């Protein structure tokens, strides 16, 4: 053990984070295994914990915590009559979710979740980007079925309103009798309580967990009052069969600036924290769904840098890592009931 000279470890880490992380990943002697500044191995992730139904005002909610990143998601359902939807077409049964904007995800970082996110201003670029990413992934992953959000009504017969049986159940369409009178709109609000890197993975996991937890009340249309009435009895859960999970890693090159020639040496750091995110330019996010044993990739996005090659992205190690991460999240979400 060399005698401690000059600065202590923590001071050095603060003053010069990049060489510190590099020195940790490339230990001078073989006795110490390579580790990151936070003590994790390069591919080691923070174990997620999930807590469902912690909010009473929301129709579904989830709290997801990975390390020091904590996000709470609350889903509220509100109704909109089809007559109030601009450009409503009854024949449209394919793209209702996106055409009528029935899913409204928003992310709030400005809760003092980290010193750089203080309330008072407009949402930061990061918050806007995250909201948009969640929004587009919700639609592209086809996580929800539009029929869960439809509220049906049968046009009453002339003499009596014989059949009061409504809801989004299986309908026996009798010509012109049963029609969609309204839709549920899901407001998905994500609040970061604590922020320490990798916001998208946590936010997306919270969204999926909260959607699986969401129960919509039984709803029917009252033609006299021209409004939707709901019943508290046996609310109906949403059908969420798939479980896409997002896995993020950053690439650390060992060079502080891009001008320096990278000698091909790099480290893939899974589930980065704030410090690592600030030191790395290249990020890769893969959204994967392993439900039922088969591995399906829903999206891969890679930003910045040129280190991560197509070969590496499709390598077995990388996909195996993503599958392990999927299992972590999936067992945390399903096991917390």
């Amino acid at each position, binding site marked *: 053990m060399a005698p401690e000279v000059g600065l202590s470890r923590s001071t050095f880490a603060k003053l010069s984070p990049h060489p510190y992380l590099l020195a940790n990943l490339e230990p001078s002697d073989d006795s110490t295994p390579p580790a990151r500044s936070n003590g994790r191995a390069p591919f080691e992730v923070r174990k997620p914990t999930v807590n469902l139904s*912690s909010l009473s005002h929301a129709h579904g909610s989830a709290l997801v915590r990975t390390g020091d990143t904590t996000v*709470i998601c609350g889903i509220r359902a*509100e109704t909109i009559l089809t007559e109030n939807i601009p450009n409503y077409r009854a024949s449209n049964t394919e793209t209702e979710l996106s055409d009528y*904007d029935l899913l409204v995800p928003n992310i709030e970082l400005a809760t003092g979740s980290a010193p750089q996110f203080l*309330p008072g201003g407009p949402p930061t670029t990061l918050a806007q980007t995250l909201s948009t990413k969640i929004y587009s992934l919700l639609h592209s992953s086809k996580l929800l079925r539009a029929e869960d959000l439809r509220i049906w009504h049968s046009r009453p017969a002339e003499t009596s309103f014989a059949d009061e049986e409504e809801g989004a159940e299986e309908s026996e369409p009798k010509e012109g009798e049963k029609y969609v009178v309204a839709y549920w709109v899901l407001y998905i609000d994500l609040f970061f309580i604590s922020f320490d890197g990798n916001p998208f993975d946590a936010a997306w996991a919270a969204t999926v967990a909260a959607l699986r937890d969401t129960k919509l009340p039984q709803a029917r249309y009252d033609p006299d009052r021209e409004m939707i009435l709901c019943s508290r009895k046996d609310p109906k859960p949403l059908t969420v069969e798939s479980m896409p999970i997002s896995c993020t890693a950053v690439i650390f090159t060992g060079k502080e600036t891009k001008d320096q020639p990278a000698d091909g040496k790099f480290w893939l750091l899974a589930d980065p924290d704030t410090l690592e995110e600030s030191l790395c330019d290249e990020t890769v996010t893969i959204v994967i769904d392993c439900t039922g044993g088969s591995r399906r990739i829903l999206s891969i996005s890679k930003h910045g840098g040129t280190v991560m090659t197509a070969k590496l992205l499709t390598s077995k190690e990388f996909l195996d890592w993503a599958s392990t991460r999927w299992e972590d999240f999936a067992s945390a979400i399903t096991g917390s009931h």
Partner: protein
Amino acid sequence: MADRRRVNGPGSSTLPPVYDDGELNAASRRQRAPDAIRPLCETKPIPTICSYMSYHENLETKTLRLDLKTGVTPSASGSAYLEIEPREGEHGSGMKLTCTVHGPRSLPRSAPFSPYMVLSTHVKFAPFATKQRRGYLRDSSEKDLSTHLETALRGALIADRWPKSGVDIVVTIIEGESTRQDAVERRVEEWDVMNVLGGCITVASAAIADAGIDCVDTVSGGVAALVASKDGNDASIVLDPVALEHESVMAACCVAYLPNRDEVTNLWFKGQLPLSASYNHQSLVSRAVQASRGTHGLISASLSEAIGSTQN
């Protein structure tokens, strides 16, 4: 013009669900004496919000239920999480608050010189915190709460120890009270604001202690209310009121109180006292002070427990 920096949803407005069947159980103030307050504090050094349920096991002998933890947001200088449990026999009408403290840190160059610490408070309800969905922009009631909180804390902080520096205190209400539909119908939300303010003061005080900012004392919030009984001609004062448990609330008072100095830093009185009654303003204020004394004992117990467990 809609806010383009957020996802706004459908163009025309949506309606929250309207229920036509009543709620299952009626509210009542059973199992609680008039001067019993609900809170009970619990602090852990680096706790998880998920595990709060386990703390209640050793607390069952007491009538008070409140959960307080510090250190929820490690990147902030100080943070606390407060949870007031829902009442017996009811599901889900508790209160959940988080508070983060950032600073003291240097003011921006553009700011004018200040010989004292500049305190800024920010109270925000989450959109899912209340019965009606709230927007992301702060409304007037949230600004009002921020101002009250600022006054309450300003009296406790020793501000001249940090010249030229600023502190940001952010309180997020994850869940407010009054889940029930009749809370909206009976227009009792205005009384719940008092309880929310009391919770904000308590949680901010714990977060300031966690941040290690010097205070003259730990300030704590307490609420008392004058309520009418069923027949309407008999009034009594209760501590830590829940408006739904009573027939009607005539007046309520929220204080921020420093017990060791016997000082009140903020006082908010609302409502009208009946002319004939034997209650006056002083009696209501002193009962509110009594409520905050109760809260204070619980905060200091949980804070000292947190210190003890970090030293071990």
